């Protein structure tokens, strides 16, 4: 009985984990290239969630069609914030970029609150279900997980097989050297920031396919913390590390929930979230470079 429940929840965790992973890749990418921690990360996921909801309820389109909208909106926001704010802070103390991304997050949240109101919303996308015996997976969740894995693969190909991806990698290695070789470093920063934000907003689409309820302007805060845990698990600067970190985190979250639910007198949902925070502290303490490679 318990084993069945655990197996079911772990499968769900793996599916959710791939979405978590994708939702963290943008954060890792921006940190990897610009050395900037996007503290407003969750707000961009929220933008993706609202994009999906609008596409689904106002335009009456399948949430899959929200992906191109989200990518375009995200990249546009990314370029806008990069050229208006971030490029002036590349050489500033860390305090400046942390507070700047934090403020950008607040601007987005408050703008959405003014447009849509602050109550929770959701939508209902019926796609049928896949019965695995121990658990039932709606196809919408599988599409979201598959889409996330596909995006991770595309990002890998872009990084390693295209000229612009190679240019960005060279900037990560040595921005001065890249400049000497004729790479437009500022453009590489701008592109990475915009792609990172674009990925994050797109991940909001996948997240709402998985969990189509609980959309609200302030929904991002929880995801910011989760994304930090995942990013640190995967080594803060590595987007693929983040993807695998997401898988581990999804398994961990659902596994610990299932185990905590058997203990009487505790609130398993809240404790799960507490443990994800403790995980963050423990990893930062013992292995701040992530689980996968040492520096």
């Amino acid at each position, binding site marked *: 009985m318990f084993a069945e429940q655990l197996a079911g929840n772990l499968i769900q965790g793996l599916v959710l984990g791939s979405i978590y992973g994708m939702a963290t890749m943008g954060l890792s990418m921006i940190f990897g290239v610009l050395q900037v921690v996007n503290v407003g990360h969750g707000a961009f996921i929220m933008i993706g969630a609202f994009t999906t909801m609008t596409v689904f309820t106002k335009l009456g389109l399948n949430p899959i069609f929200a992906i191109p909208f989200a990518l375009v909106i995200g990249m546009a926001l990314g370029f806008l914030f990069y050229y208006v704010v971030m490029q002036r802070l590349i050489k500033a103390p860390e305090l400046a970029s942390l*507070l*700047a991304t*934090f*403020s950008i997050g*607040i601007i987005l949240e408050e703008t959405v609150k003014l447009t849509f109101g602050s109550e929770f919303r959701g939508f209902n996308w019926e796609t049928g279900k896949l019965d695995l015996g121990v658990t039932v997976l709606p196809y919408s969740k599988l599409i979201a997980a598959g889409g996330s894995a596909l995006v991770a693969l595309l990002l890998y190909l872009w990084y390693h097989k295209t000229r612009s991806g190679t240019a960005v990698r060279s900037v990560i290695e040595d921005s001065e050297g890249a400049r000497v070789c004729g790479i437009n470093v500022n453009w590489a920063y701008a592109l990475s920031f915009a792609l990172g934000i674009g990925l994050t907003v797109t991940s909001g689409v996948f997240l709402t396919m998985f969990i189509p309820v609980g959309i609200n302007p302030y929904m991002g805060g929880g995801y910011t*913390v989760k994304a930090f845990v995942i990013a640190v698990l995967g080594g803060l600067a590595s987007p693929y590390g983040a993807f695998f970190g997401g898988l581990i985190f999804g398994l961990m979250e659902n596994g610990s929930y299932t185990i905590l639910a058997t203990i009487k*007198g505790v*609130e398993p949902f809240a404790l799960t979230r507490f443990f994800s*925070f403790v995980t963050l502290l423990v990893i*930062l303490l013992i292995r701040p470079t992530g689980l996968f490679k040492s520096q």
Partner: protein
Amino acid sequence: MSARPGKYLALIPVLAAYLGMFVFGRVQPDMWQLVAMLAFYCCLGQAFNLFLGMTGYVDFGYVAFVGVGTYGMALTLSRLSGVEGIGFGALVIGLLAAAGMSAMLSIAVGAVALRLRGAYFAIATIGVNEGFRYFIEGARIWNGSEGIIFSKDLRAIFGRETAIALSTFWADVFVIVIGASAAVVTLIYMRSKIGFALTALREDEDAAKVIGIFVTKYKIIAFITSAVFAGLLGATAWALKLTYVYPPDAFEIHYTVEAIIIVMLGGAGTLLGPVVGGLLYGLSKYWLAIILPGFQLLIFAPIILVIIVAFPEGTVGYLKKKVRGTALERYIV
């Protein structure tokens, strides 16, 4: 270190500001609520500045210390209400509990986070408030997600009249005193080895280490001091004033946001900055609540962006540059 005359002259304007708030509130009793709000923001900024301003590290989970302090007072009052003749002893124990509990949390968090630099520090702290909130709710300690309501206990200890006076008047006076004390401690730190070490750390942490400054020690001192003032603020401005504590409210990240705005607006690392920032923020919030309710964050977040990009020293930092070399130099710090 030679004792310079006028070393502590800079306290005059900042203490005058706190005294001015009190006097204004007494003269205009119908404005007392506004004074209470302004005092809260000045005190929040003053306490937050002790760490952010002096070290240049951002603690995104700062509100957790205010929340834990609120719990310290709430638990004390609700547990001790049955004790015969405890009276004002309960208040003292409550304040001590608030200070002690926030100090303990800050040591626990600091033990991990203060080993980390810059971005990693921010990442480690961003979940502290949520993490602690979910710990209270999840482990069902301190009445779990239901929170603690203790207005009855407050009346049982002090009697009806005194309880009301405590909530509506003395709580705010305490806040003013705590804010002023935080300012005094800030200046003492600035004028001592701690301040010099932290300035070196803020400018270049590696260089500070190389010349033999034990940076972690000074970071911890600033972190704990800042947390203790936050705890005292929670015990008075939230616990005594509201007479209840409820986890989602006590650990609301919104207050960290406000603390950041206040400190940046006034000038991080300056003595007078938090008061100037607190007054600017509090008054505009009060005014915006009348003409554009719900807009204050949407207005302040872009202002913070502008400050960070164009004007990182804040109002007082700017003034400080202007008065350099004049007689005012000693007063604006």
